[in-house]
């Protein structure tokens, strides 16, 4: 993929020209942390699911700039994430998945030892040129139950947003209101005996105030959703840039659930409600603690 990588690298270099020292510093830090992750790569540098640190290290450095200098992210209780297989369950907001990106970077930079978080993506992502490629090289997979089980059985750290697009594309008046949680993650956790870490992400809910969601038009255009925000589509592509809110990621105590994963919905629902309540508590606590959205 010589041509594509060339373009991508040129772009990265341009950014580097604008922010040379910060980017270089971020790159050094990312490389250093990546080297500490025991990944199982084959002779070509790929793991079994298409992760390729050599391709993703640059975009991770860019994400690190967002993490440090744009969102000025703080984490609380990251040491609670157990080693081995684990599911990170968080609230989802902000129109674009910067919350996933920041959660991933936090585990890479702040957790000891560093972990590479595997995201479970929407089904449309593999159909998008470049994005499908970038997502896979970064360690993300299509969110099928089979993929999730395979990752957990390989003792990976998997991140799931059970609200999905319901959470991410909700409007401003519903910020910090957790939407309905899917049950799938809990069934998989039970099936694979995986501990769940509830996570409250404070900040993402204000990054891109949604005014409305043009669902009808989105469906007609084949898009998952088409949010109208304070800045998009008013300012064009520039309007996609989130507000420089401060991110605060609160990690809760790991929750262990018992069962086979084949229980009735209401049994699973009760367990899911526990996780949801834990996240809700973390969000409330986090909002009370902070001095302001941007501070």
């Amino acid at each position: 993929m010589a041509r594509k990588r060339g373009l991508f690298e040129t772009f990265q270099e341009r950014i580097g020209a604008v922010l040379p020292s910060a980017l270089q510093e971020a790159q050094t830090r990312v490389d250093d942390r990546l080297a500490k992750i025991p990944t199982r790569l084959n002779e070509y540098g790929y793991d079994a699911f298409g992760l390729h640190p050599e391709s993703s290290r640059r975009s991770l450095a860019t994400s690190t700039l967002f993490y440090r200098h744009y969102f000025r992210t703080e984490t609380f209780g990251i040491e609670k994430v157990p080693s081995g297989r684990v599911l990170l369950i968080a609230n989802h907001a902000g129109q674009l998945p910067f919350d996933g990106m920041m959660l991933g970077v936090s585990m890479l930079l702040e957790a000891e030892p560093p972990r590479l978080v595997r995201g479970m993506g929407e089904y449309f992502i593999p159909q998008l040129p470049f994005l499908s490629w970038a997502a896979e090289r970064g360690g993300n997979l299509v969110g099928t139950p089979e993929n999730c089980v395979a990752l957990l059985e390989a003792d990976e750290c998997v991140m799931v947003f059970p609200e999905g697009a319901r959470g991410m594309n909700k409007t401003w008046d519903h910020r910090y209101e957790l939407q309905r949680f899917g049950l799938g993650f809990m069934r998989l956790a039970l099936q694979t005996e995986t501990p769940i870490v509830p996570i409250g992400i404070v900040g993402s809910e204000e990054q891109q105030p949604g005014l409305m969601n043009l669902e009808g038009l989105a469906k007609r255009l084949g898009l998952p959703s088409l949010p109208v925000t304070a800045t998009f589509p008013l300012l064009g592509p520039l309007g996609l840039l989130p507000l420089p809110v401060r991110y605060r990621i609160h990690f809760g105590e790991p929750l262990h659930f018992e069962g086979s994963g084949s229980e009735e919905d209401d049994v699973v629902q009760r367990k899911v409600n526990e996780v949801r309540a834990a996240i809700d508590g973390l969000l409330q606590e986090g909002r009370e603690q902070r001095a302001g959205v941007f501070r």
Partner: protein
Amino acid sequence: MEKVLITGIGSGPGRLLTERLRTRFEVLGVDRTPWEDHPAEVAVHVLDLRKKGFEDLLRTERPSHVVHMGFIRHFKGDPNRRHEINVRGTKQLLDHCHRYEVTNLVVMSSSYVYGAFPENPFYLDEDQPLSASRSYPEIRDLVEVDTMATGFLWRHPEIRTTVLRPVSVLGPNSRSMMAEYLRQERAPTVLGFDPMMQFLHEQDLTDAIAMTLEQDLAGVYNVVGAGQVPLHTAIEETGGVAWPIPEPLFRPGVRMLFGAGMAPWPPGAIDYLKYPVTLAGDALAQAIGFKALFGLEETFRSLRGRG
């Protein structure tokens, strides 16, 4: 010595299998085209599986083992004829195997039958639906063959029937779709896509078939090689140059060229350059202890010495 009949014996994999089995079995084979310099002790019959001559051969020779790998996999001729030869030929072969008391049967299918889709999880097991015809109707005959053979396996438990679904087979003798694709100097790819792919060396496939026969295996099994890399890495490693084309140009272009008989593959094949079709191989490993001996580098190198 037990007798094994190989269909498609003159093909690359057929010849390799003959070589592998001839010390253990009395080998005979059929093909639609002659195999000029076949070993003297191997009887090669040029005939059509759908015709009476094939039934006569089974009745008189009474092979105990049959390996069915004689399929048309290219798209050069009339698609109806290809479908008829592959599907009708298999149907006849299965009937004869039952009637003339064959004890062991291996039917060669492929990973293509699962189909390439964006929602494919990694490492499909043998229970996944065979959905290839949904996006790639030109190979529905291969899906039908697989389904027919699987049905036969359950209907006739007295015959040890195995359906093998190998991933892309590479090697100097292989004419698999992926081998042919990688032999091109410039390999067209879909701009912005680089799916993970698995490869199997032709010698490893031969081993898997031989072990299947020797260990009286029955069932449906994926056959995987030593590992997986993205498509573009495979192209580089086999000495080719990737030629990324934006999909809005690629698909209509291939449709037009294929319609004019100038492209080797129909547009449905493009999905295999976009989405991963990776298979889980643990079932076969557990059943007969099969493990690919050729690593990825060797497998790629085996194709590089191309003429």
